[in-house]
C-alpha cells in the first residue's frame, strides 16, 4: 500500500508539474528578454481558459482543438500589451514596471469579473473523468493528455529557441541587449515576439488545464505564484531551469502534501526553495549575472 501511495503521489506531482513547466517557461522567456517581472502572467492564462470554455460551451469545440485558437489569440494579446504598455517602461525604474504589470493583472481580473461574473465554471468534455489504471496507480486521461501536450509544446519551444534564427536572436537579446542591437538584431521586434510567445505558452497551459480544472476570474493568481517559484528555482531567465523548476515544484507540492500535511504543501516547496537558493543563489541552472 505504501509504495502505491508513493507512486501515486509522484505521478500526480509530475502531471501537475508538466503544466507548471509550460507556464514557467513562458514567464522566464519574458523575463529573460525584457528583464521584466510579469504579474499578469496567470491572468493571461485565465483569459485563455475562458476562451476555451466559451468555445466549448457555445460551439462545442474540444478544448484540445481550441489550442490552435487560444495560442494565436494570446500571442496577439501579449504582443499588444508589450508594444503598447511594457515597451514604454522598459527603461523606467523597476518599481514602475512592477506596478504596470500589476495594473494589467487587476484590469484583466476585474474585466473578467464584469464580463463573466465570479461564478466557478468547468468544462465537461466526454472524456472528463475518464481514467486509466497503471497497476494500482490511477491516472486521469485529461491530466495525462494535457501533460503530454505541455511537454511537446515545451520541447517545440526549445527547438525554436535553439535552431531558428529568430530564436537565436531572442537568446542573444536575453544575453545582452546592447550587443545584439549592434549585431543587427531588431531588438524591439524580438521583444514583442518574445512577449507574444510567452503569452501563447501560458495560454496553451490555460487551455490544457481547463480540461480538468475549474475556471474563475481569479484562478490565475495561484499559478502566477507557482510559476515565479519555478522560475527562480531554475534560475531567472533560464529556459531549462524553468522547465525543471516547474517539475520540481509539482513533485514537491504533491509529496509534501501527501507526507507532511496538505495545508503545509507550500511550506515543503518553500523549504526546498530556500535550500536550493542557499546552495546556489542564482538558481539551479542560472548563470550569475554582473
Amino acid at each position, binding site marked *: 500500500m505504501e509504495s502505491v501511495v508513493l507512486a501515486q503521489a509522484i505521478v500526480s506531482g509530475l502531471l501537475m508539474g508538466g503544466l507548471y513547466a509550460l507556464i514557467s517557461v513562458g514567464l522566464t522567456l519574458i523575463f529573460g528578454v525584457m528583464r521584466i517581472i510579469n504579474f499578469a502572467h496567470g491572468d493571461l492564462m485565465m483569459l485563455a481558459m475562458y476562451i476555451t470554455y466559451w468555445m466549448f460551451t457555445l460551439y462545442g469545440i474540444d478544448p484540445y482543438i481550441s489550442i490552435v485558437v487560444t495560442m494565436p489569440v494570446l500571442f496577439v494579446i501579449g504582443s499588444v500589451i508589450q508594444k503598447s504598455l511594457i515597451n514604454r517602461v522598459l527603461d523606467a525604474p523597476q518599481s514602475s514596471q512592477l506596478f504596470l504589470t500589476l495594473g494589467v493583472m487587476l484590469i484583466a481580473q476585474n474585466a473578467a469579473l464584469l464580463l463573466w461574473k465570479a461564478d466557478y*465554471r468547468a468544462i465537461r468534455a466526454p472524456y472528463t*473523468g475518464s481514467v486509466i489504471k497503471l497497476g494500482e496507480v490511477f491516472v486521469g486521461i485529461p491530466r495525462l493528455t494535457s501533460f503530454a501536450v505541455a511537454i511537446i509544446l515545451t520541447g517545440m519551444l526549445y527547438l525554436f529557441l535553439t535552431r531558428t534564427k529568430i530564436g537565436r536572436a531572442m537568446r542573444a537579446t536575453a544575453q545582452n541587449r546592447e550587443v545584439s542591437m549592434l549585431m543587427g538584431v531588431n531588438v524591439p521586434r524580438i521583444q514583442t515576439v518574445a512577449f507574444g510567445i510567452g503569452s501563447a505558452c501560458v495560454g496553451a497551459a490555460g487551455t490544457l488545464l481547463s480540461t480538468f480544472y475549474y475556471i474563475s476570474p481569479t484562478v490565475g493568481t*495561484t499559478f502566477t505564484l507557482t510559476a515565479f517559484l519555478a522560475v527562480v528555482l531554475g534560475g531567472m531567465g533560464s529556459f531549462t531551469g524553468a522547465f525543471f523548476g516547474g517539475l520540481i515544484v509539482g513533485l514537491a507540492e504533491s509529496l509534501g502534501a501527501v507526507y507532511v500535511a496538505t495545508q503545509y504543501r507550500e511550506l515543503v516547496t518553500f523549504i526546498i526553495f530556500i535550500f536550493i537558493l542557499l546552495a546556489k543563489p542564482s538558481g539551479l541552472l542560472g548563470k550569475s549575472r554582473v
Partner: protein
Amino acid sequence: MRVYEALKDAGSTRSSKAATKIQAVIIIAVIIVASVAAYWYYYTTTIAVPEEIIIGAPLPFSGAMATIGLSCQRGHDLAVEDINAAGGIESLGGAKIKMVYADIQSDPEVTTSETERLISTHHPVAILGAYASSLTYVATAVSEREKVPFLAPMAQADAITDRGFQYVFRQAIRASSVGAKAIDMIVEMAEHYGTPVETIAIVYENTLWGQTGAEAARKRAPEVGFTIVYDEAYSQGTSDLSPVVINLKAARPDVVVLASYLNDAILMARTFHELDFNAMGYVAMGGGYLEPDFINSAGKDSEFFFAGSGWQRDLSITGLADVVERYEEKHEIFMNEHAGLCYAATWLIKEVLELSGSLHPDNPLDPDSIRDAFLKIDISSGPAAMTAGGRAKFNEKGDNIYGSHVYLQVLNGTQCTAWPFDRAAAEAVWPAPLWNERQ
C-alpha cells in the same frame, strides 16, 4: 376668600383644622383627576397599536453577496404579502407588517452605519437580517445597543449568540452543531440501510467555517463509535487536491465528511473519480456542495454527494409546495435556501408578535415583551416552522434549539431531500455505487 385665607394661614395653629380639611379635599380631588387622566392616557396610548408594524431588514443588495440579498428580500416580501392577506397580526388588532430594507453592501462597516440609520429613521419593532455571519455579527451589536429585537434567519457562527445579548435570536443551526449533525445523519443512514459504518475521514478547508465544522464532527464521532482514520485540513483554493485523495484512499474510510467551498468542491468530486476513491457516503456540511454550480460544473461526478442545508424546496411540510410554487411563478427562478429561510423567519417574527400581543396586551411592542415572547414561543406547524428543524423554540442564549439541517443528495442531477427520513422527498442511494460501476 376663606379658602385663600385658609391657605395663607395654613401653617398657623389658629385655623389649622379648617386648613387641613380643605387641603385634604383638594388633594383627594387632584388624586382622583390625575388617576382618571393617567388611566385614560395609559389606555389610549398602549392599546392603540399602530396599524403598521415596521420590521427592518438590513441586507446586502450590492457587493459580493448581492444576489443572496435579493433572494432574502423576495422571501420576506412573499411572507409579508401572505401575512397581511391573512389578516395581519390578530392579537394586535390585525396590524399589518411593513418591511423596511437597507443596503448594507456586503461590508461590515456599512452594516454598522446602515443598521443605525435604519433604527433611527424608521424605529422598527424588530429586525430580520443580515445574511452572512460576519454582517449579522456587527448588525446585532447595533440592535442590541438600541434594544431592538433581532432575528437572524440563517447566520450560523456561534459568536452571534455567545455574547450574552438579550435581544438577539437565531433561527438556523449553530455552526458548531453542523458537524455533529453530519455524524448523526451517517449513523441513521447506516442503520436504515443495514450497512455498518466503523471508520470515517474528515477533510475540510482550513478557515473558520471548515474548522468549526470539523471540530464538532471530531468530537461527535467517538461518541457514536466511529473511528476517525484520516483528519486533514487543506488550504482553500489549492491548485491540486490529488494528495488529499491519495491519502484518503490509503486510509480506506467507510464514509468521508467534507467541508469545502465551491471551487474546491468541484475539484474534490473530480479528483475522487479520477483517483477512484470509493466510500459508502460522501457527506458534505453544506458549503460549495450545496450550490447549483457544483452540479453544473462537476457534472456526473457530483452524483450521490450529500450536503446539509437549512431549507429545501422539496421538504415534505404541509403547505410548503404552494409557497414554493407561487415564489417560482413570480420570479421565474428556483426558490433557494436563503429565500426559504427568510420566508419562514418573517412568519416566525409574526408569530412572536402575536404571542407578545396576547401575553402583554398592555405593551406588546416593548423590546422586553418581545423578548419574553421569543423565550416562550414553541411553534411546530405553519409557515413559521417551514425549516429543516420544523420547530422553533429558543433558549436563554437566543438559539433555536431545533435549528437543524436536512441532508440533500444529488440524484440524477437534482438535489433531493433524503434525510431525515420523515421529511425526505426521495429515497437515498446508500451506499454510493463504486466509480467504475457507474455508467
